[in-house]
């Protein structure tokens, strides 16, 4: 892999968002992933979502583990600090970063090997802990960088490129995240940008642990007949539960749908999510119902996508630790050091 910078010249006619940035300002160097990789579509969706959400790029910290998916943070948000951590352990590093500075927006990027195999423990615990972040899993059911081994999310019966059949059952990270306490859980498909971009925007505006499981076909090792993660298979088996529109606090909320089919959800930061129901009976605030529905559809061979679960009331980690409003990283001696007199009192108590 090499570093291919994109030219920084911007055409003067490029549209600027409310914070003065063009879409190009959210891009990174040229991707070195395979042509047609689903991950590049997700990167593009992240770029679009951040641009449309009027997020200043430097206020985002992007962290990833190891793998093809974890390479992508290089290719978007070039003006943000990024951190390629170790395999399967991005969640702990992101947790520490979030503890240090609660003012930034945290974007965790991982893959199915990184999150469901080597990193399943950290994945579960970051959801349970309630870290305020957006966690995107680029899920292709296969190891790319080591050339085609099954990952722990691969469906039982899925056929590898060289003919091996997967005999283990796959781990559904979305269901697991709901069980572990994530307060925003969604699934999407890298090939459905219209669904994906609003979900990323909604996840970023959610003040708690938000996870997006994005099915993202691997063109090199898992896009053949017999694979359950190929573009064709996912398109044919995508059961979208809903469509989402996201309105920033300043925007007027416009409704395009027929009355009675949408749900309006206001986020604590003023962002409004307008949920257009495609599956009439699906209620994303019902934890048990959501899990049952996802499991039933999975048994039928379908991939449920859309906003799967939302708990708008859960406090995040900082809320539960009751930390001060200022970032801990910015506190200085006056705020942190109790001083010589207090230490002398401790000495006295130890005599």
């Amino acid at each position, binding site marked *: *892999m*090499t*570093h291919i910078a994109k030219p920084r010249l911007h055409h003067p006619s490029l549209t600027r968002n409310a914070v003065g940035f063009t879409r190009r300002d959210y891009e990174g160097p040229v991707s070195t992933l395979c042509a047609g990789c689903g991950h590049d579509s997700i990167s593009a969706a992240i770029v679009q979502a951040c641009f449309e959400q009027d997020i*200043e*790029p*430097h206020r985002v*910290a992007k962290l990833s583990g190891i793998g093809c998916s974890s390479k992508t943070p*290089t290719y978007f948000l*070039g*003006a*943000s*600090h*990024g*951190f*390629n*951590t*170790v395999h399967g*352990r991005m*969640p*702990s*590093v*992101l*947790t*520490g*970063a*979030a*503890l*240090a*500075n609660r*003012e*930034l927006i945290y974007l965790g990027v991982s893959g199915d090997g990184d999150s469901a195999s080597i990193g399943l*423990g*950290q994945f579960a*615990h970051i959801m349970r802990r309630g870290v305020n972040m957006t966690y995107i899993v680029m899920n292709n059911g296969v190891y790319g960088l080591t050339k085609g081994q099954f990952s722990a999310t691969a469906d039982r019966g899925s056929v590898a490129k060289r003919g091996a059949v997967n005999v283990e059952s796959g781990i559904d990270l979305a269901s697991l995240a709901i069980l572990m306490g994530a307060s925003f859980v969604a699934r999407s498909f890298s090939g459905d940008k219209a669904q994906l971009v609003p979900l990323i925007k909604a996840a970023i505006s959610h003040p708690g642990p938000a996870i997006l499981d994005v099915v993202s076909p691997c063109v090199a090792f898992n896009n053949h007949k017999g694979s359950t993660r190929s573009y064709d298979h996912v398109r044919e088996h995508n059961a979208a539960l809903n469509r989402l529109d996201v309105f920033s606090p300043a925007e007027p909320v416009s409704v395009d749908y027929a009355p009675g089919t949408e749900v309006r959800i206001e986020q604590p930061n003023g962002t409004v999510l307008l949920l257009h129901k495609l599956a009439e009976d699906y209620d994303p605030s019902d934890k048990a119902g959501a899990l049952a529905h996802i499991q039933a559809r999975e048994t039928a061979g379908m991939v449920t996508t859309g906003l799967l679960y939302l708990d708008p009331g859960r406090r995040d980690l*900082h809320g539960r*630790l*009751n*930390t*001060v*409003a200022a*970032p*801990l*990283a*910015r*506190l*200085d*001696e006056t*705020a*942190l*050091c*109790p*001083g*010589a007199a*207090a*230490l*002398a009192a*401790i*000495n006295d108590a*130890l*005599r």
Partner: protein
Amino acid sequence: MTQKLNAINDFVVKFANVNGSGSASANELFARAILRMGVPVSPRNIFPSNIQGLPTWYEVRVSGAGHLGRRGGVDMVVAMNPETWKQDLAELTPGGYLLHDSTRPLPESAFRKDVTTIGVPLTAICNATYSDPRQRQLFKNILYVGALAQLMGIEPAVIETLFARQYKGKEPLIASNVKAMRLGRDWVRDNLPADICGLRIARADAVGDMIFAEGNAAAALGAVWGGATVCAWYPITPSSSVAEAFEGYCKRYRTDAATGKARYAIVQAEDELASIGMVIGAGWNGARAFTATSGPGISLMTEFIGLAYFAEIPSVIVNVQRGGPSTGMPTRTQQSDLLSCAYASNGDTKHVLLFPEDPRECFDFTAAALDLAERLQTPVFVMSDLDIGMNRRLCRPFAWEDGRRYDRGKVMTAEELEVGKTFGRYLDVDGDGIPWRTLPGTHPSRGAFFTRGTTKNAFARYSEEGADYVANMERLQKKFATARALVPPPELSPAGRPTAWGAISYGSTAPAMAEALATLVADGHPLDALRLRAFPFPDSVRDFILAHDKVFVVEQNRDGQMRSLLVNELDVDPARLIAVLHYDGTPITARFIIAAIRDRLAAGVVTPLERAVS
């Protein structure tokens, strides 16, 4: 009959108890009462990895001369555990004393003829006084403290003052404890000859302003005063009390008075991989962060420690050392993680280690580690051990100068970026190998970079070029050399007259070493001594070794890990360094060191000496 031991302010008492019986606070009361009489003591808990029902011991060395190392040998046993009776009795020095509960008569064969038996009917007195079973148990412990006070001449008023302080605001508890203590005292006074015990405490003035503190609590205080805001940890003996004490002190000193909000964040992680990951994430993002762990935790953390080394992220690890993996002697002390910490992780790595000798240095070095980690942008280890960490030790009081500023290291500001200062994350602009860093969120368009392991150039661009890799590795080497001048220097104790012999020690070996050196000098064996306080080694360490024909390296592990580190890093002739090794899980003693060194000096031979058990 063997001559009874007679000693004033110089003896060892060992309490044999059953854990979970409430004996710990009574035993500590005994130690504190002697301290209050102005006489130095050094107590040590010897306990099993268990919560209730197994044998536990508390060994108190009384030393008017101020020797705080473990002495070895026992002059009096307070035998409160029938299960270990035989073993406890066997350990007694001839002429010593056995204090026991004489409620149930024991056959003559249960005793030793060469020790003085002091029977006090503790259970009978308790049963006659208290009806509640828990009270009977707890006050039995206080009763034997009262008995000991009478036997040794400890002033009851001193003990009563301690009760008043311990139970301030709970007056009924003060009265009931005083009553129990007096019951024991009075029984001994009324029923035993006044001179039955030859071990006496005489009021002295040898404690001065010293404090009686635990190393783990001291490390926690160092983290509070040193400005740590993020603590992520996973429970492991013997380090858990570092994080727990940090939480306690933070609640007290770091809670915003106006809002009740916390100026700290503590997370009990799911394992040590996560705890070090959180520390690294917080350090990357500009907070002072630390974790506390022990050897098995270090093993789990090593990949991350390597990442922090190469990505150059400040992080502090307090390692309270114990034995090896699994059921690895978790309640016994060792200095056996030197090599695993000095070279932790894959790739060419080297880490800064600090070696505190006592709680005072646990405080100093934890605070210093937070400065060093940010100055050097690298992991820094505070290498404590169970002996320092989980025992109260008499030491110099903690000190802090108001106006002391934290060294936040080279962090480029938004203003510097704005005026166009060149930023290359891994660029050596100052010639000391330490690059500048930026924190996330600093500037809207400048200073952002992507953090990775080793595939990068000086501007943090992805690069697999060999030349970029080598340049980076050489700069890291230069940075490590810079560290030599920043870490605490070694402490030299000259023999006072010319000698060809030297001795090197570090960490919790210090008090036993000092005592051994004094004895050896008095016996005509002068040695110059060097106490190492940090790795990397300053040049003075090499100079010290080269200035002596032979240097004993005294440490508490099997493999002579410090000796290996010295040979490896300083390229000195291994034949110059003679290993003196103690690693049975008990703290090293002056007697062991004296015997080992005296044997070598007498024999004049140079092969490394190893002896596992003192």
